[in-house]
């Protein structure tokens, strides 16, 4: 029972310390949350502000080409629902009005379609210029508008070629293509290239049946897949920090005289040290549980099978608590502990790969070095869990991590026992 009372006392004291709480929750969440927010985490994708476009269409329907007007088609494209997330296009009658609106910052970009736009597009010997007038302080909005216009003109050029090819093919068979049929070919080609372009933009060719495994399909956007390893690395890094910080209670009590006083009560030395270790372990378990839960709820990270995750989590708790106890047992004062402990945790965590969890092309030597740190083995267990590994794939690295924890704990208890005898 005395072990329990010592544990409870240490837990209350630790949870009243802003320093411990900062290392336990605030810092790891900030470390993982900042990149998440930077990549537009809570808005489901890249968060780009809608560009305000003003369009002046001076183009006229061409009687030569069945009343076709390319300028109207371009305006329709700029105002289409498909581009609504990127652009909001509004028409004005004159170029001067459109430019004045941009100068007045009522709009970001003006797209001015010249009067002979359709005619020029149909003729090889004529060049045509669509003016894109924009606020010089902006880059992304004008680039989007330019890209849309460029794609339109590329598509139109392709349509023309398609119509020319169709005409040439029919001519070879002694047939002719009237203007209405020619415009129809162009429209059909335009529709097709538009759908292909749309598919390619999403990384999928319509001619390819691309299927991911059901597990990957459930999972996450690229951004979430990036945040998962970062969050994992930060959780492991700060768990080792919290392990060492909370084990410092031994030194703090030694300096405050309460440890000597505890030894003067009819309480065994073993009960005192075990009570303290259990407090560190419970604090770490709380930290890991909260961070995993918050990671899942807030960042949609899929940590993997709950049972395997629990096993990995226990490995982390044991490894970090044991490591903290061992470190503290070599320290003589809080002042010394603060410097040495910080250095030791940072060095082993870096070598263990907690800072580089989102890199996949690390040199072989690095992957070997992290086998010599408890953090490296803990990460292996968690990654195996996240990637749907089997029990044996998770259990092996977790067992090694747990063993390092137990060995460290034994060294720590041996040192502390000798020191206070």
């Amino acid at each position, binding site marked *: 029972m005395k072990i329990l009372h010592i544990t409870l006392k240490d837990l209350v004291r630790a949870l009243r310390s802003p320093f411990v709480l900062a290392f336990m929750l605030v810092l790891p969440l900030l470390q993982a949350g900042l990149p998440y927010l930077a990549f537009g985490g809570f808005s489901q994708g890249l968060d780009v502000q809608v560009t305000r476009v003003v369009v002046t269409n001076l183009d006229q329907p061409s009687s030569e080409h069945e009343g076709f007007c390319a300028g109207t088609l371009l305006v329709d494209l700029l105002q289409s629902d498909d581009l609504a997330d990127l652009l909001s296009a509004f028409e004005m009658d004159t170029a001067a009005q459109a430019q004045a609106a941009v100068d007045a910052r009522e709009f970001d970009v003006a797209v001015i379609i010249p009067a002979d736009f359709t005619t020029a597009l149909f003729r090889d010997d004529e060049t045509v210029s669509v003016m894109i007038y924009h606020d010089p302080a902006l880059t992304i909005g004008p680039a989007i508008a330019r890209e849309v216009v460029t794609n339109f003109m590329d598509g139109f050029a392709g349509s023309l070629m398609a119509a020319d090819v169709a005409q040439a093919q029919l001519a070879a068979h002694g047939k002719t293509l009237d203007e209405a049929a020619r415009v129809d070919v162009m429209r059909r080609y335009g529709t097709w290239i538009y759908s292909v372009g749309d598919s390619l933009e999403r990384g999928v060719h319509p001619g390819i049946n691309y299927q991911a495994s059901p597990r990957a399909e459930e999972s996450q956007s690229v951004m979430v897949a990036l945040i998962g390893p970062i969050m994992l690395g930060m959780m492991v890094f700060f768990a080792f920090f919290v392990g060492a910080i909370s084990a410092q209670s031994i030194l703090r009590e030694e300096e405050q*005289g309460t440890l000597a*006083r505890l030894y003067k009560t009819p309480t065994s030395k073993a009960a005192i040290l075990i009570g303290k270790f259990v407090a560190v372990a419970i604090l770490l378990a709380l930290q890991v549980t909260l961070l995993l839960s918050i990671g899942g709820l807030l960042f949609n990270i899929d940590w993997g099978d709950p049972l395997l995750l629990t096993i990995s989590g226990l490995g982390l708790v044991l490894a970090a608590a044991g490591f903290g106890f061992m470190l503290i047992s070599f320290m003589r004062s809080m002042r010394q502990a603060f410097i040495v402990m910080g250095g030791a945790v940072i060095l082993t965590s870096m070598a263990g790969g907690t800072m580089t969890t989102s890199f996949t092309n690390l040199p072989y030597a690095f992957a070997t070095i992290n086998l010599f740190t408890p953090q490296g083995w803990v990460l292996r267990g968690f990654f195996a869990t996240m990637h749907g590994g089997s029990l044996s794939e998770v259990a092996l690295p977790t067992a090694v991590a747990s063993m390092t924890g137990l060995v460290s704990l034994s060294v720590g208890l041996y040192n502390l026992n000798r020191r206070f005898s």
Partner: protein
Amino acid sequence: MTNEIAIHIKDLHKSYNGFTAVQSLNFTVRKGEIFSLLGPNGAGKSTTISMLSCLLAPTSGDALLLGHSISKTPRAVKEVIGVVPQEIAVYDDLSARQNLIFWGRMYGLKGKQLARRVDEVLDLVALTDRQHDRAGHYSGGMQRRLNIGIALLHEPQIVIMDEPTVGIDPQSRRKILDGVKELNARGVTVLYTTHYMEEAQELSHRIAIMDHGRIIGEGTHSELIRIVGGLIRISLTLRQSPGNLIEMWRALASVHSVSEENGAISLLVKDSTSILPVVFESTARAGISVTGMDVQEPDLEAVFLHLTGKALRD
């Protein structure tokens, strides 16, 4: 007070790294007695307390507290003693009540008994009104009182106090001294260490004077005073170096001893009225100005000076 022995120390010895902190310590404390260990810093008082409270193992020898050996049955010893450490050993981020509950549990108290004792001790150390405030927000005196209260929770038959009044204001010091007397009046045996002569003199039934890890004098206050044979101490401060005056004064028949430390000269004499004119005359003849003088009747300071040749406060 009875003739039964509460504490029996037998040839207790502690040395570490070639340094002897306590050597061949022998004394007994009777039940219901206040026994003080008086000595300067570094005399070995705290080492003795650490051994008696089973924090340090003696190099040799043993001590029995209510018949329990510190070497063989330390747990039994810990159950019958309450130790007030020199430093304030309380959890400053817990309230007084939380502190007392925790320490009470460490002494094996629980349930209603624990709650009753916590209330009683809070009352005893006058912290009932502030019991829910964090100890870190208390004044030094309040923290000292809580420090003492913790040692009394399990109603120990022996209370060991290691310089409990160090660094506190006179008012809090008075409260603590009165508290020790009250505790003793309830039949508790108190082993008290201090380097304040006045405290030892006021509180103790018997006093042991320690220096360099050994007891150099032991007895009641009057027994100890008798060691200096009723000698009076004359303390002098001179503007110039005394030169050969010290040798001259030593040669006088009524002067027992003369010592000089840090420019202050102490003469232990049998009769101050006959020696003072001689002192003034000799200093005047030597052209030396006397800038300060104090004449003290025999006290423990004089005893310490007599036994060690140096002042207790040094």
